[in-house]
């Protein structure tokens, strides 16, 4: 049993793993992995109830990771928190490995395979509904990307969860303002996003998605809400690696050896 890590320690370790995996395995989606890592670090350090030795234990809180392409962040955090070891993680994208480059439920700690956007939210609604019907107290978290709010299925789920008062549910939007082929504003603007979600019946908060204290407070107070809770987390794509921040190209590129070294140094320097 390893000593309990702080969210800051998890975030920094995960960020280093993300850039290293992207470099070693020539993987894409480094930008979206770095934007969401603080959200995941706070959830796994301070909020979620789970036992890495029994990933499917009935009383666990469920996390549905809809932005499955940013798999490196979740794999890295699950590795840091003891769901599997580094050797397993290092099979990432290798022939025959369950560590596919969109999250796979065959990996311990992953509730649902995703990768096609707009799927996990509906499934999470079913899980939250089941908890209500069975009078169970575990909570259901969903992490969405901003770009995937283009998918109509997510809006079906926003309607559904509010109508059925699934107050055991927290949806977090990793709002890094960049999507696959342009900025969110260029491709399909979401603003005013908070107003939209409030008008849909969601208890909605906007925060800095890299501020661990703000994330902790918001998640902790979500339990008090009588409505489903939406957290719009304003984030920066590529956060922590100065030359990647806000750059569309890091949705696709993997770092060269020199860029990898520079990224590691940048993460240390920015002390994310």
């Amino acid at each position, binding site marked *: 049993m390893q000593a309990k890590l702080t969210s800051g320690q998890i975030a920094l370790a995960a960020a280093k793993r993300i850039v290293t995996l992207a470099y070693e395995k020539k993987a894409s989606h480094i930008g979206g992995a770095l934007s969401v890592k603080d959200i995941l670090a706070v959830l796994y350090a301070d909020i979620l109830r789970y036992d890495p030795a029994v990933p499917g234990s009935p009383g666990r809180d469920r996390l549905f990771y809809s932005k499955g392409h940013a798999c490196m962040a979740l794999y890295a955090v699950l590795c840091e928190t003891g769901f599997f070891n580094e050797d397993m993680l290092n099979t990432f994208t290798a022939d025959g490995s369950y560590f596919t480059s969109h999250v796979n*439920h065959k990996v311990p700690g992953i*509730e*649902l*395979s995703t990768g*096609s956007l*707009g*799927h*996990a*939210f*509906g*499934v*999470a*609604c*079913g*899980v*939250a*509904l*089941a*908890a209500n*019907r*069975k009078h169970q107290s575990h909570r259901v978290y969903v992490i969405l990307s901003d770009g995937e709010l283009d998918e*109509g*299925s997510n809006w*079906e*789920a926003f*309607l*559904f969860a509010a*109508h*059925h008062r699934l107050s055991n549910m927290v949806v977090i939007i990793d709002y890094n303002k960049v999507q696959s082929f342009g900025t969110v504003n260029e491709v399909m603007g979401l603003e005013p996003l908070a107003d939209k979600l409030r008008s849909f019946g969601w208890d909605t908060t906007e925060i800095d998605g890299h501020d661990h204290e703000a994330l902790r407070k918001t998640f902790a107070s979500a339990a008090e809400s009588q409505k489903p809770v939406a957290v719009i987390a304003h984030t920066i794509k590529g956060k922590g690696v100065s030359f990647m921040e806000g750059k569309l190209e890091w949705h696709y590129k993997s770092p060269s050896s020199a860029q990898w070294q520079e990224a590691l140094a940048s993460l240390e320097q920015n002390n994310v």
Partner: protein
Amino acid sequence: MRTAFIDQLIKEATENESIFLLVGDLGYSVVEPFAEKFPDRFLNAGIAEQNMTGVAAGLAMEGYNVFTYSIGNFPTLRCMEQIRYDVCYHNLSVKIVAVGGGYAYGPLGVSHHTTEDIGMLRTIPNLTVCAPGDPVETRMVTSFLCNHSGPGYLRLGKAGEKIIHDGPLQETGNHFPKITEGKETVVLTTGGMLETATAYVRANNLPWGIYSVPFIKPMNEEALLRIGGAYAKVITLEEHQASAGFGSAILEGFNNLVTAGKLTRFPDVKRIAIPDMFVGYAGTQDYIRKQVGLHL
């Protein structure tokens, strides 16, 4: 068929507390008895079939055996990817029920003609694909799906289908229910075309065999082997596009048997199905079936 389905579902749900029914804002005058009896295991998910299928997957992850119910293409083609990825990849106990198979909603137009579902759904791993031939088979298949772990698809007709089998079936589970044995020629049907085949063979006093095939996938290859050994001519009849449907599944099944050396002679197969077309005019189910050539 839909009444037989809901009656059987209620019967099963009385003993099996895992059964949950989700409807896509449809089922008026059909599903109310279930909703009244099991309010904790019923939900109208609204006109949002993609979300309904996701919700079904989530409920199934938590131990429910979930039936999603809507018309034709809505719980199926509309949400193919939720079926493929959320339900079937995770091998969850979600049973998709479509009413109005084929041209059961003939006058309502192409939106309501359910004529590509079998072909599209039977390519998906883990999914059991069923189209019972009459209310008796509907009860048997519903009971099977209530006790089956994993995904399933149930294609139903609508209302008023004739009962073809006298009394309950002798056998349950995946088999070919027999109407009559014959010589030389056999008709294999799936779904509501059973009535058409039976009426034709009886009216013309033909010495043909007739079997219903309510389970299209997995194909029962032993039953198919017996048919292939006993009959030189096989006619398949379905209310579905000719491409990738039931007749195609029969051809594939015979091919597998011949390739594996279990069947020495490939039977002469004649497929009767929809010839790759939409029907853009109104018509009763009988009218459209005749127009597109769904007859012996």
